[in-house]
């Protein structure tokens, strides 16, 4: 129940931030951060399907191609699990590696599906102006959001 509320709050907050920032700045991906916070608190066997489900929900809510964000969040969750075993989260460099790698994996998944569906407009050359600001903003707020999430949920990684 707590996870459902978390995801609902993330979607609501994402809508609020999108409306607040307007079209000038791509908003940070709060749904991605919420998914990371969520998968960090459960095992990969539950975390991967959950991330896939959240991505699917995001696709449906945004009237996009079902599977686009699902695969993106799935790969980001998998990257999170893998990288968390390689570097330590409590160090700043470790956080940068985990979050950066996970974020890159998300876009890799999205672009993979876009390539499969032959969606010409979905390619890094046209989307870099969205990807880069979104990544910067997301990575800047990520430690604070995840810390707040842990305090809220009461989970210690």
């Amino acid at each position, binding site marked *: 129940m707590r996870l459902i509320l978390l995801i609902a709050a993330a*979607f*609501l*907050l*994402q*809508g*609020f*931030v*999108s*409306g*607040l*920032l*307007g079209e000038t700045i791509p908003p940070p991906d709060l749904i991605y951060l919420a998914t990371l916070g969520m998968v960090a608190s459960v095992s*990969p*066997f539950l975390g*991967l*399907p959950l991330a*896939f489900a959240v*991505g*699917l929900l995001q*696709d*449906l*809510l*945004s*009237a*996009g*191609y*079902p*599977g*686009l964000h*699902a*695969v993106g969040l*799935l*790969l980001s969750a*998998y990257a999170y*699990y893998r990288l968390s075993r390689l570097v330590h989260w409590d160090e700043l460099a470790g956080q940068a590696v985990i979050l950066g790698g996970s974020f890159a994996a998300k876009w890799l*998944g999205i672009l*993979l*599906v876009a390539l*499969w*569906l032959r969606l010409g407009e979905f390619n890094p050359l046209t989307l870099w102006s969205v990807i880069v600001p979104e990544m910067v903003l997301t990575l800047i707020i990520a430690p604070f959001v995840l810390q707040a999430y842990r305090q809220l949920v009461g989970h210690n990684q």
Partner: protein
Amino acid sequence: MSSALLRRVLLAGLLVLGILLATVTRQSAPTLPGEFAASIAPIFGFSFRLGQNARASLAAIFDRRDLRAEQRRMQAELQQLRQENQRLILENRRLQATLRVQAVQGLGVVAVAPVIDDDPSGLYRRLFLGAGSSQGLRVGMPVTTANGLVGVITEVTPNQAVVRTILDPESRVGVRLASAPGRGVAYGAPPRMLRVEIAPEANVKPGDKVVSGAIQGLYPAGITVGTVEQVLPVAPGALKKVLLVRPAVQLSLLEEVQVLRPL
């Protein structure tokens, strides 16, 4: 089967599921998800509109702040322009007075000098000018305005000059009547009158104009000196007729004067 392998199998399965889902629903996208999104859009659209309203509110606050800053800047600019306008009005008045002097009196103006002080003694009637030898002023230069004669420069320092006005008791001005024959001398009679001694045969009455008249004197001929206010009775056997003349220039109100080339 190990845990790592299971994770990979799970990942691959979900990956394939996602790609298949995207492939299968591609023909119906965005209709199918659009219908779903439309049904729950009001819930999440609410937060989006909330964000938009917050943004509009912030924009209004910042716009208001910008407008206030702009208003302050424009007020400062307006104040500066008003001062500039005031300065230009004064300069225009000064230049017009100079032009009038040249047009009416046909004389060469050496300088336009500000009056910075009066003689405080009460005995003499002298003015102090805020210009001196550095501005080309010399002793003996006549001082005038568009309304009439003021006096003559008697002392000069690099940046100041003293003017002995026609009201000064030591002042002597050769005068004549503007509308009738008659030559005389105007003496200063403080505080505000001139005492003109003229030939007893001169036909003069109150209201007549008196102008400077000595061809070889200190002052150029034809500059208005004043207006006759009173003709004193001529005593039997007197050699001169005495007139009381009000100067054409109100010396106490002078702000600027024109200094002329000496004769």
